[in-house]
């Protein structure tokens, strides 16, 4: 009995992989957007003039950054519903929540760094003109900080594409889990995971291009 070297049947095996890729893209988009919003709020709070606000925000960022995503996902999926039965969500929703919590903490630190990278003189110029804190942040600091945040932010999103593969531990059928499912049917891991790898590349490479385009535009 000779096993064919390439038992990967595109007509049969590609559609489930594409559905998995669809979930992966959804996870990146959902948690990327939610994480950016969380990151903006906590990143601003981390550089707030009031110390208690800074401390509260740093509890979140330091706590979450100290946890493996696996632990966050497992806790949300298996433990939270036991503690709060109403907080029972599907795998996909739980995955988005977990990844958003995780992304928010990292993106908050990117924003904090970017806000602090805006030269002090810019803040003083805003203050000297009589702008209040909100006006100064909105019109002077944030537009400059966001520009600084784009390259590391894109770097983080590229890493996030890969991090989504961990959601398979809560049985969400993302690209990685779809690959494992297909493999267990066609017994062709090499070709299957080459396709899986190619799909991950197709998802993350446009982000690299976006980053390169942005840096060239700035130059």
């Amino acid at each position, binding site marked *: 009995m000779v096993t064919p070297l390439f038992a990967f049947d595109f007509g049969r095996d590609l559609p489930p992989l594409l559905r998995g890729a669809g979930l992966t893209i959804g996870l990146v988009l959902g948690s990327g957007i939610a994480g950016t919003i969380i990151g903006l709020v906590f990143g601003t709070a981390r550089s707030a003039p009031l110390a208690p606000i800074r401390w509260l925000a740093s509890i979140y960022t330091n706590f979450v950054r100290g946890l493996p995503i696996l632990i966050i996902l497992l806790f949300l999926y298996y433990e939270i519903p036991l503690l709060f039965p109403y907080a029972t969500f599907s795998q996909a929703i739980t995955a988005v929540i977990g990844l958003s919590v995780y992304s928010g903490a990292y993106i908050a630190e990117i924003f904090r760094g970017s806000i602090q990278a805006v*030269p002090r*003189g*810019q803040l*003083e*110029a805003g*203050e*000297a*003109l*009589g*702008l*209040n804190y909100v*006006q100064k942040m909105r*019109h*002077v600091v944030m*537009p*400059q900080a966001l*520009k600084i945040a784009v390259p590391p932010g894109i770097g983080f999103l590229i890493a996030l594409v890969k991090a989504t593969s961990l959601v398979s531990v809560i049985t969400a059928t993302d690209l990685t889990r779809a690959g494992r499912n297909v493999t267990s049917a066609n017994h062709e891991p090499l070709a299957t995971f080459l396709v899986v790898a190619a799909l991950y590349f197709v998802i993350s490479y446009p982000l690299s291009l976006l980053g390169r385009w942005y840096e060239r535009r700035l130059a």
Partner: protein
Amino acid sequence: MSTQPMILAKDIHKRFGDLEVLKGIDAEVDEREVVCLIGPSGSGKSTLLRCMNALEKFQKGHITICGHDLTGSKTNVNEVRRDVGMVFQSFNVFPHMRVLDNLTLAPMKVLKVSKAEARERAMALLEKVGLVDKANVYPTKLSGGQQQRVAIARALAMQPKVMLFDEPTSALDPETVGEVLGVMKNLAEEGMTMMVVTHEMGFAREVADRVLFMDGGVVVEQGAPKQIFDDPQHERTQAFLSKIL
């Protein structure tokens, strides 16, 4: 209350940690007066200037500026800053906004002036500093002297009663110093009340009504420019001027 000085500082003490940089400063600037602060680096000139619009806090003493008491805990510093324009050594123009938007931002947001009026006022100010043709350019495309003139126009757009200048020409290429000093001189001639920290002794001599010489956190000597530059009384003033003139 025209008899009240525009700026009145009494016994200002300021320390950074253990370092006392202002050791009891008294200073006064009358309406329409131009006062230049000179002295060696580290003498506290810039720190004193920055106390005037609350960019620095001081530990002891009193400052009244344009009728605002900076010592009062209820003082809204943003209200004080509406009346007090400031120009920095490093220009600090907003690089993400066109020149015109640099000038209209604060009047629109702080004074709630309409966009049309703010633009009109801004164009008039750009005319005054000779940069009308740069209205729609980003400041990064401008020379240091041009950026500093934008910064002066930006401060003037708030129609301040006092202008503070913190070494406005120290970061400039020598050939652009003149254009900035020229704008400042015109401003002085129009009757603007000005407090200027400067190393440009020619400007101080020509434009200032009064010169304060500071050293080691105290005002060592003050008087008319002619008296300070031609007949300094204190030996520290003499030593400083002999090195710099």
